[in-house]
């Protein structure tokens, strides 16, 4: 009787100590691996990844038997994908494929599902997850400005996560921002956003460009050209595009009609055929200049063509070369 009592006391003490140690270890584990807190607490002896793999295979089988994800089966599909990521919160493919599969029937749930993945620090380098979330938001709520604004955050996250963002990600971001502006003219909105991005970095080019949008200047030119083509009579757009061209491409020669860059010596724009202001030719013989002097007649080129591009605001001008006295011919010197 006495020994039984001792055994019972020992068992209780062991359970209590074991529980305390397990609790402490769980806390420590959560500190080391924060994603573990997202995991399912079912006691399966640490075989969570294995369980998620089995569920993944079962989902593949289940999805193979479906014609499409419809109203009838969407809840079951969500439940199955939820179960997989509850066992393994870092299962990227489950998030991507799962969210896309039920995004048409239940876009809100798909965005919520992807948002959970975006907030998982273990998946912080995956740019596709926020992109899909943004994509679902913009396509499920085209007229809802709230959804479009929420999508911008996801697109921005996708661009920042990607070392070389894909063009479609950048364009989706720009389109969403243009839509969120709420202007009637979408092309003008796009141009305004691109010009704003350019202005944010315009004075800092010497240090580092901070824009998240690659090839900004080319994008501005293309957007201005498209806008002019689609809305040739919009006065506000014409004025704004003129201002943009003057500021962004102040060192380049652009056709005022179609906004294409033309080469030195061109009398007509090669894109639209309109006459353009000729530049870069010799004032005497009209030959296209290659350097400081005309290679045909020897006439000195105007200073504008020889000098370096205009000095940036606030920067010191480059040192001006001193005038060197012409060597005096020997005969004259003797006289």
């Amino acid at each position: 009787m006495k020994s039984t009592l001792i055994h019972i006391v020992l068992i209780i003490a062991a359970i209590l100590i074991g529980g305390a140690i397990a609790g402490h270890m769980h806390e420590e584990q959560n500190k080391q691996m924060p994603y573990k807190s997202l995991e399912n607490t079912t006691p399966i002896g640490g075989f969570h990844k294995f369980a998620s793999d089995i569920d993944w295979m079962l989902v593949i089988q289940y999805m193979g038997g479906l014609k499409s994800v419809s109203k009838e089966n969407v809840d079951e599909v969500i439940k199955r994908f939820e179960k997989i990521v509850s066992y393994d919160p870092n299962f990227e493919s489950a998030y991507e494929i799962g969210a896309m599969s039920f995004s048409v029937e239940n876009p809100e749930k798909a965005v919520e599902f992807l948002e959970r993945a975006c907030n998982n620090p273990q998946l912080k380098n995956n740019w596709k997850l926020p992109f899909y979330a943004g994509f679902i938001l913009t396509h499920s709520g085209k007229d809802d400005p709230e959804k479009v604004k929420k999508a911008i955050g996801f697109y921005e996250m996708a661009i920042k996560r990607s070392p070389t963002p894909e063009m479609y990600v950048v364009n989706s971001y720009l389109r969403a921002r243009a839509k969120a502006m709420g202007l009637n003219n979408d092309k003008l909105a796009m141009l305004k956003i691109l010009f704003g991005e350019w202005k944010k970095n315009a004075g800092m080019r010497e240090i580092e460009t901070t824009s998240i949008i690659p090839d900004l200047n080319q994008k501005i030119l293309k957007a201005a050209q498209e806008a002019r083509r689609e809305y040739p009579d919009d006065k506000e757009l014409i004025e704004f595009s003129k201002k943009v061209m003057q500021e962004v491409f102040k060192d380049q020669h652009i056709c005022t009609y179609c906004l294409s860059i033309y080469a030195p010596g061109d009398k007509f724009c090669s894109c639209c055929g309109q006459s353009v202001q000729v530049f870069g030719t010799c004032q005497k013989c009209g030959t296209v200049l290659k350097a400081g002097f005309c290679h045909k007649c020897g006439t000195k080129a105007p200073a504008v063509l020889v000098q370096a591009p205009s000095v940036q605001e606030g920067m010191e001008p480059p040192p001006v070369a001193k005038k060197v006295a012409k060597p005096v011919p020997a005969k004259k010197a003797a006289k």
Partner: protein
Amino acid sequence: MSSKLIAGTVIVLVPAFIVYMTSESLLREAAIAGINPEQVNSETILKELPSQIRDSINYSVMLSQFKDSVANASTPAEKANALCTLADYTTDIKEKEDLFEKVIKKYSTQKESANAYFYFFNKQGPKVVKIGIPELQKYILQFSFLDQFSLWGLALAQLKSENIPESKQLEFLIPLLYIEPNFRDYTALYEKIAYFASRQSKSALYDKARKCEEKCLKYPFIETVLMKELIKTKGQEK
């Protein structure tokens, strides 16, 4: 002991002691005479020492230099700067916290006190001074827009490094929506607000941040303004 024995001992020991001291001093002088004072200075001696001793000597030297600069500082800005430098350098946590506390209590209107605020900002555990989001906002907002920009940026970087939730980071930046800074650099902060607002589905805040961002685009960069001032000062000097 007989008096003869005592006298004999004294007669032997005292001259022996004097001879010992004289020979020792002669030997030491002879040893030092060969040293070139230009080659042997504190730095060369320090180089020869083991790293642990060298570090501790360096630490003491630097600490005393920083203490000297605290004593020599005359203006409140200089005092705040010197105290913060000393507090940053010292490894004694108690001394560090005392110094930063002193800076916050005495020099809360100096921009040089920023390090003290950042030290206590959002600090976990027992605190000497409690600096939360409202206190830091109040401290930053008292300065000119030129000085404010870097402080906002540093505070935001600290929040980010401590993995503070985005909702808190947004809350911290909210006062920026109610001021009109006249520098283009602030667009980066407004962009951050717009990003946080977008992530948290706060549409009104998003719109406001974008409007503020657009307003800031009209103004020059801090770098440009400073460069112009520098050129102007150089011109006046000439």
